[in-house]
């Protein structure tokens, strides 16, 4: 069974006073297999976030439906963890409390939570920072906590909307490697939105390119590069070729005035 089935999902935002309705997403269909790492590329405003939000249950599709492990999505739930571009740690909770948030909502007792938290703190390399507040962390560290927080719930699917978009290039590179490590050990299905072609290829087992607004999927490229990957891969000729190819796909879509 596919992990995610997106069936003819489209989204139109109703008109605001006197304006036109916005077609954010023309109906798209898409099947994502278990354990795939799917990245979605596309110009700004093409509906990437909209699609991800619909899968996450944060937005309703105007047409179509989304099935996750065969069950229709009707709202957000802890089976689909999300990581956002903006830093969404709860500022009033410490790192450990943030990671435990979902477990607490589930009603897991404190003693059981502590073990899980400790485990994920280690996995994202934040030992010693358990009792720091988010404001005391750098952007990269915050996003690592956000990933740990989403994973602690043990979701079937991880939805990531430009999670490294606000990080600087070097930190970003390191985060990509970390994420791949975690993906390989945890074996999650990942849907990852990004603007960065290099990132999209480096991470993906399959890379989608969306066309400009209103979005539809215009390229669906399997990335056959072997895992584990590290940053040297980015200089690999196959990688550079794939990158040129995706660049050409996307480039036509972005215009200077967009």
């Amino acid at each position, binding site marked *: 069974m596919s992990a995610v089935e997106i069936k003819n999902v489209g989204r139109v935002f109703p008109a605001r006073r006197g304006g036109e309705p916005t077609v954010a997403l023309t109906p798209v269909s898409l099947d994502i297999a278990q354990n795939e790492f799917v990245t979605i590329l596309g110009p700004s405003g093409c509906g990437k976030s909209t699609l991800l939000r619909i899968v*996450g*249950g*944060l937005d309703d599709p105007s047409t179509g439906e989304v099935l996750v492990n065969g069950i229709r999505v009707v*709202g*957000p*739930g*802890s089976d*689909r*963890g*999300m990581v*956002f571009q*903006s830093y*969404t740690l*709860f*500022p*009033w*909770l410490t790192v450990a409390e943030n990671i435990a*948030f*979902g477990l*607490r*909502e*589930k009603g897991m007792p404190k003693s059981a939570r502590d073990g899980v938290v400790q485990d994920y703190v280690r996995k994202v390399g934040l030992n010693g920072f358990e009792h720091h*507040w*988010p*404001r005391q962390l750098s952007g990269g560290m915050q996003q690592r906590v*956000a990933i740990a*927080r*989403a994973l602690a*719930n043990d979701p079937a699917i991880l*939805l990531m909307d430009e999670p490294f978009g606000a990080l600087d290039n070097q930190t970003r590179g390191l985060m990509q490697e970390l994420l791949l490590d975690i993906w390989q050990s945890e074996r999650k299905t990942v849907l990852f939105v990004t603007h960065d072609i290099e990132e999209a290829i480096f991470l993906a087992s399959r890379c989608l390119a969306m066309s400009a607004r209103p979005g539809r999927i215009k390229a669906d490229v399997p990335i056959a590069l072997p895992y584990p990957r590290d940053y040297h891969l980015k200089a690999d000729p196959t990688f550079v070729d794939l990158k040129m190819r995706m660049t050409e796909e996307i480039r036509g879509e972005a215009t200077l005035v967009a």
Partner: protein
Amino acid sequence: MTTIRRGRYLRPLQPLPGAAKLAFGFLFFALFVAAWGAATFGGFVSPLFLASPLRMVQEGWSLLTEYNFSYDIAVTIWRVVGGFVLAAIIAVPLGIAMGAWKVVEALLEPFVSFARYLPASAFIPLLILWAGIGETQKLLVIFIGSVFQIILMVAFTVGQTRRDLVEAAYTLGASDLGIVKRVLIPASAPQIAETLRLVLGWAWTYVIVAELIGSSSGIGHMIVDSQAMLNTGQIIFGIIVIGIIGLVSDFLFKAANRRLFPWSLA
């Protein structure tokens, strides 16, 4: 940030060293008192209109030592704090409910927005009728003066909670009530405390109105009494005492907020 040479402190936004800041602050107070002293001691202003600084201090001293003014101060403080706490107890939960549920907001917001403009002082005759001339009436003046402001500001704060935090909580499996209790409320708490601090600042001005009209104790009552005797020294002393109390209460509130919400520090 910007550190720029040449004529440094004439540059806009150029910060001053801490010591200079303190010195300038004192300087102005000193100038103010000096001007006041010159006007009064120099005989430019009749003592009938304006007591000299010295006279003011003497009057203040005699108020404190002979006329048990500290009791009036205590009464005034109790009224403000009492009315304010009452208002906060009602207004904060209501504000949170309004901020969280738009149905509640749609129901109450227009009414509260309107009620906010009803001047508490104009209610005094009605309040005497309804609640007599005791403490209840004074507390109610403070209450009416604060409650609508707090409701609106709290509702606004809660309504402004970062949507991405709420959505993150939903994707982590939070229930609707969980969102309110474990996201909206903690996220708004520092701003709510800040609102309370602000409104408390205004409450000090209402209490004087309540005391100017129909009361037998409190700083405002003392001022009315002094007016009868044309004792401007006492009036000024009373005004300054209120100013100081306001400043102190503000400072305490700020300190408490810093302690309560260390995570929200800049």
